[in-house]
């Protein structure tokens, strides 16, 4: 058969040719897919955010309400029941707790929704070819948007309590994006395990809770005894929180160490998570 006897439009763009024999480098392919599928990722993020609040009365307002309610509970418990106020220098304890809570919710929801994203989209992944790694990324971005939005009531509170809003606020996206990378990377490891063992998500919730309590969310770091202090310093998300607090209300750029630790952890977690996920995917997809 010659091409002349065939209807037009038969020439196929190279990028639309799938050849299983063509070796694709792990990681390079995955990271490139994040860019190539950016529009679909955008749609998936919107779907996650929209679908989440679709059948609720307050809708997207939950994004703002959720950290506020959690903060109020924590503030009541720790400031009034445990009378834990000392050691938080110069700023109202409420602000200290709220920054911590925003952070904790980001970590918990981020890792959890990234971890469950692949199992939740199994129906699509079993039928159509889509690079699977875009689902974890979209899930993480959705939660990151929540975190960004919940900074708004925090700023209102800062103004109301006379703390003010320092110029360093413009740098706040950096620790939040570092945190996003960490959550996506970590979540992707959980996602690869969760395909095989559905209770990996339950196990992980306990782990993340531990990680959360090893971060000074509601207690000041100063009251922690020496041994635990060292443990906290090993906690990768601790540095994200230091930066976040310093930038959002402290008005300080911190030293260089937390920057290196935060950005480094994010990059390493995302790279490792993506590579581990890509390697386990081939075997995992058959079990979906």
């Amino acid at each position, binding site marked *: 058969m010659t091409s002349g006897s065939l209807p037009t439009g038969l020439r196929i763009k190279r990028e639309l040719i799938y050849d299983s024999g063509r070796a694709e480098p792990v990681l390079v392919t995955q990271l490139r897919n994040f860019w190539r599928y950016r529009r679909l990722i955008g749609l998936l993020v919107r779907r996650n955010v929209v679908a989440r609040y679709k059948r609720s009365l307050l809708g997207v307002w939950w994004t703002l309400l959720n950290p506020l309610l959690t903060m109020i509970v924590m503030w009541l418990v720790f400031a009034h029941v445990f009378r834990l106020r000392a050691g938080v220098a110069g700023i109202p304890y409420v602000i200290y707790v709220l920054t911590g809570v925003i952070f904790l919710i980001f970590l918990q929801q981020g890792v959890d929704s990234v971890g469950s994203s692949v199992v939740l989209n199994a129906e699509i992944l079993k*039928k159509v070819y889509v690079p699977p790694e875009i689902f974890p990324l979209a899930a993480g971005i959705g939660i990151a948007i929540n975190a960004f939005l919940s900074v708004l009531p925090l700023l209102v509170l800062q103004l109301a309590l006379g703390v003010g809003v320092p110029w360093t606020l413009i740098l706040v996206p950096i620790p939040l994006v570092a945190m996003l990378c960490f959550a996506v990377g970590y979540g992707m490891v959980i996602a690869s395990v969760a395909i095989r063992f559905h209770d990996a998500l339950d196990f992980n919730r306990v782990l993340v809770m531990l990680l959360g309590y090893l971060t000074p969310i509601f207690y000041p770091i100063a009251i922690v005894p020496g041994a635990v202090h060292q443990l906290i310093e090993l906690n990768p998300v601790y540095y994200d929180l230091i930066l976040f607090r310093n930038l959002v209300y402290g008005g300080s750029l911190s030293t260089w160490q937390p920057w290196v630790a935060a950005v480094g952890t994010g990059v390493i977690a995302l790279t490792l998570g993506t590579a581990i996920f890509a390697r386990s995917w081939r075997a995992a997809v058959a079990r979906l």
Partner: protein
Amino acid sequence: MATPARIEAADLSLVYRLPRDQTRSIQEFAIRLAKRQIRYEDLWALTGVSFSVRPGEVLAVVGPNGAGKSTLMKVVARVLSPTQGRIVVRGRVAPLIELGAGFHHDLTGYENLILYGSILGHHPDDLRAAAGEIAEWAGVTDFMDAPTRTYSSGMLSRLGFSVATWARPEVLLVDEVLSVGDETFRRRSTRRIKEMLGEGTSLLFVSHQMDSIRTLAHKVLWLDGGRAVMYGNTEEVLDAYLTAQDAIEAPITERQAVASQQA
């Protein structure tokens, strides 16, 4: 210059490595691991399967349940990677398998149309521009702003089919899809598939309906136990396949006859 084949499968093999005992929880797995009780079983879902489909050509896949037909479809759809051998697919693939299964039922018909179309590889802007046309073919124009959870199964299938076929993909994968829906949908979808075949789309379909295979397929691939028993012209393969089916059935009918005599 000869047009390259749309689908080229050379010596495809696929192994499912399954744990002999299904463990769904980590605790159980850890316990088994400690006791060294994790055993795996290699299940060869496909062994050395080769075929090719050219533009406008229709290949039907037949065989008993568990023959590897669905696995083969997934390999062509790029969902599963072959363990050995090679598969080349040139162009966009539209799987018409469990139509509407990828929909998110809290979203509206319109939102699902855009999302599902994008998953199939189309640009969201193109989909927005074509949304009216896609909805009209599916007959759901008036329900585009309603969540798909309120749709009937027929509406879901029609919308899924319409989105998947709107942009005239190069390769269609069909898994008994045309048996869903009412007579009108069956006729209209068959007509659209035939139009697409005329335009050079290739079709790979799994079916148990011999008459639809006879009317549509140019070639037939007969699978059993993951191996290609026969691959060739429709009439030849179907005749052999049906003869073999009769041969399997015959002893059973004889035995039944004996049994009923004894009773």
